[in-house]
């Protein structure tokens, strides 16, 4: 029997898993100002965005923190957010693209 690959009828059920995860905190990472929760277990995959409680909730990730064991990545992945980052970025790469008017065309990205 072929697996059902038709578009999902509905979104995954949203559950509050924070309480249930508390006994597994040694395998989780917490970041202060985000809310996206993705939990993958053998039984269920749940993605839980909670915008309405963003400022008070936490990101829970089941990813191992391999990026922080890698010197190369430690230099690139920021340890904290920078409110000035967006302004630093805006237009700062003009020199990279001045001869690439085709930046949005397929061939450029492929």
């Amino acid at each position: 029997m072929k697996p059902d690959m038709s578009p999902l009828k509905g979104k995954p059920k949203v559950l509050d898993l924070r309480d249930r995860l508390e006994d597994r905190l040694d395998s989780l990472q917490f970041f202060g100002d985000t809310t996206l929760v993705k939990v993958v277990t053998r039984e269920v995959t749940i993605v839980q965005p909670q915008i309405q409680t963003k400022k008070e909730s936490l990101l829970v990730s089941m990813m191992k923190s391999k990026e922080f064991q890698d010197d190369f990545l430690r230099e690139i992945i920021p340890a904290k957010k920078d409110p000035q980052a967006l302004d630093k970025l805006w237009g700062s790469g003009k020199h990279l693209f001045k001869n690439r008017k085709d930046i949005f065309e397929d061939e450029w990205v492929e």
Partner: protein
Amino acid sequence: MNGLSELVLLDTNIFLDLIGGFEEKDTVSSKKLLDSIKAGEKLGIVIAPVLCELYYLISREGDEQEAQKFIKLILSIPNIQVFPIGQEEAIRAGWVYHKYNAGQKHKNWLSLVDCLIIASCFYLESSVVCTWDSRFEQVKDVSIYKPSEIVKSNTAP
């Protein structure tokens, strides 16, 4: 775009637009969208493979140091979150790739990263995809917007 769509999956070209300062491409919309994310009005989601695209594209046009600098700054923007791709998104992306690319001319093909973005949108509640790429217009399974459309809906009375 309704008020419930608070998660915005950002395509690679939103960031290239931002750092390139392509004013003729309405860069201001990309900046305004990211401003609203920075302000906490929305959460910006970057799927991990977009970081891969950014790294190789910027290092190809410039050098690796610049690629690393820009990626670090992008990840530093408040309320930008990286979404890891799991087996569900990967399999769904294969389904999207087949659905939209089979029988199409190559120039209209969605890239694998495009398909991973669309697949991630399946699994994130209240999410939309934001891109300048016109090839996304054929996709009907998830909501697709240009930055200018999101910004406009935010400022509408």
